[in-house]
């Protein structure tokens, strides 16, 4: 149906089928989706050997995720693939909201000024995965095994033992650590007998991704109760290759098998698009749930991405938060594998990412409750908001058609050192460290993968394992960077390898930096 031809990646007979291996691999990743592939690249970049297993031999079938957030692009930039995504993706930062036929308001995600990456790009998940897979080929340390299906897993204090099925038979692998990035149905989770609780929503949605030449700008358009689809909501969003995502709310009683028939979908599209010509790219009917594991760490197995948490699609939180899981986990694994940090550091993966997932679920549940009211009372309230919003600005703030995801702040993290005095802004300990212009480049251009000290006109001594970035007033002619960090001459920030703030000071103190650095490694 679609114009995108799924690549077929070669299956290679694993050596273990011919010669049982006694080797214990440092890390095995289960699942080559966006999350597993991101983790693999990050590990390889840090010099770790990694095996990635995937039961399939291609990328995502159908567009699935389309909105990728600034933070995700920053992470992929560190891994050397963001530019390709940017070149192919559709940049957007404006959302428009319609009630009935009327444009109620429009919002800007963020000012484009002095931002290296846009708030969002739209790019079909198959391109994202394809670019990640192709980037993996640059790293001999990544052993990507297609048609390798995990069928068994067990662990003791020393290692995890995996059983893997291939077209040529079954073999075993032993690993020090396993990242389970095997998606929402996570076979690892079920084989380990772990629960995945949450809330199931009844409403069904129809996704029709169509190709057409249309004059629509690259914006997110959302309708409540449009004339072409009364009583329900509709979303329109442009992707690469002139593909548009159109998402129709169908209500709880829709029959998915009936609704995805094209003779059923076409009239819905015609009602919306009029006489425009279009071709189908992907059609799917979905419902969703919000679920989260209680802990993402189970011994030597770490759950990441959809395997660990799922949300409704409103807000583009699923894939984006999964990529941040990988970003959070990998530097910790690397330090522990090198014996540079105690294994207690790994516990903070779950400590930091479970609250992040719960926050995503919290936001997405609120959006869901607004878009698909659960009872008559909340529907009346919702409709009252919509009817007031046309005339009064205050009510527009109450409309929730999906609050789009932002990088998580690790507010209660044990890795952060609390501020000693009051700051009037900037990036607090635990918060993501903002990028910004530095001279004629960007703060995070070419920056390494290690802990970093940002020194705002501050004299600092070198520390082993710590890279210093000096930021003079003259380097920042816009003043943006100084402002984003609430900096004064002498201000020093300690950043973690995943570019979250570990600590900050108004005056450099070598001893305080050393203590904070140890704390940030759970030492």
């Amino acid at each position, binding site marked *: 149906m679609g114009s995108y031809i799924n690549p077929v990646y070669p299956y290679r007979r694993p050596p273990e089928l011919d010669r049982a291996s006694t080797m214990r691999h440092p890390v095995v990743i289960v699942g080559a989706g966006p999350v597993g592939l991101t983790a693999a690249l990050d590990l390889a970049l840090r010099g770790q050997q990694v095996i990635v297993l995937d039961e399939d031999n291609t990328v995502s079938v159908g567009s699935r995720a389309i909105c990728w957030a600034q933070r995700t692009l920053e992470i992929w930039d560190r891994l050397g693939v963001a530019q390709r995504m940017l070149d192919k993706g559709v940049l957007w930062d404006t959302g428009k909201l319609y009630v009935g036929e009327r444009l109620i308001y429009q919002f800007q995600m963020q000012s484009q000024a002095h931002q290296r990456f846009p708030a969002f790009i739209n790019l079909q998940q198959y391109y994202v995965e394809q670019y990640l897979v192709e980037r993996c080929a640059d790293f001999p340390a990544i052993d990507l095994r297609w048609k390798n299906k995990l069928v068994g897993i067990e662990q003791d204090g020393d290692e995890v033992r995996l059983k893997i099925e291939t077209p040529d038979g079954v073999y075993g692998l032993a690993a020090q650590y396993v990242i389970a990035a095997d998606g929402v149905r996570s076979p690892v989770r079920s084989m380990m007998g772990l629960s995945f609780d949450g809330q199931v929503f009844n409403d069904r949605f129809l996704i029709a991704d169509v190709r057409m030449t249309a004059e629509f700008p690259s914006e997110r358009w959302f309708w409540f109760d449009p004339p072409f689809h009364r009583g329900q909501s509709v979303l329109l969003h442009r992707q690469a290759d002139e593909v548009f995502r159109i998402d129709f709310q169908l209500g709880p009683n829709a029959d998915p098998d009936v609704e995805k028939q094209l003779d059923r979908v076409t009239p819905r599209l015609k009602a919306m698009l009029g006489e425009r010509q279009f071709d189908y790219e992907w059609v799917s009917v979905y419902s969703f749930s919000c679920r989260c594991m209680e802990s993402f760490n189970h011994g030597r197995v770490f759950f990441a991405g959809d395997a660990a948490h799922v949300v409704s699609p409103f807000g583009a939180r699923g894939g984006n938060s999964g990529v941040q899981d990988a970003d959070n986990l990998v530097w910790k694994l690397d330090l522990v594998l090198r014996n540079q940090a105690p294994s207690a550091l790994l516990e903070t993966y779950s400590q930091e990412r479970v609250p992040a997932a719960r926050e995503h679920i919290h936001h997405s549940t609120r959006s869901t409750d607004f878009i698909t009211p659960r009872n008559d009372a909340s529907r*009346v*309230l919702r*409709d*009252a*908001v919509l*009817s*007031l919003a046309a005339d*009064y600005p*205050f*009510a527009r703030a*109450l409309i929730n058609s999906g609050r789009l995801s932002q990088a998580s702040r690790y507010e209660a993290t044990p890795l952060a050192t609390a501020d000693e005095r009051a700051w009037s802004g900037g990036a607090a300990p635990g918060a993501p460290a903002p990028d910004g212009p530095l001279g004629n480049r960007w703060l995070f251009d070419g920056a390494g993968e290690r802990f970093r000290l940002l020194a705002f006109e501050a004299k600092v001594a070198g520390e082993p394992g710590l890279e210093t970035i000096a930021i003079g007033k003259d380097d920042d002619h816009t003043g943006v960077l100084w402002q984003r960090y609430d900096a004064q001459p002498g201000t020093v920030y300690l950043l973690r390898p995943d570019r979250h703030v570990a600590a900050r000071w108004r005056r450099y103190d070598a001893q305080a930096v050393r203590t904070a650095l140890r704390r940030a490694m759970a030492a």
Partner: protein
Amino acid sequence: MTEKTLRLDPGIADPDGFYNALVDCYRDLDERQVGLLNARLILLLANQIGDQALLGEALQRAREGI
């Protein structure tokens, strides 16, 4: 500074007049429309109050009485 709490002493200048206006407001509306009107009214008044703690207290007192 004392914390703000919901005002529970008489605060409406002309109680009879207001009550009458409210009842009038519902005239000729069916049940669905009354529901919508009530909801719009709540939202308008809530925005006027603005304060989250006060609104929370109002929600609680309204619910307690049922």
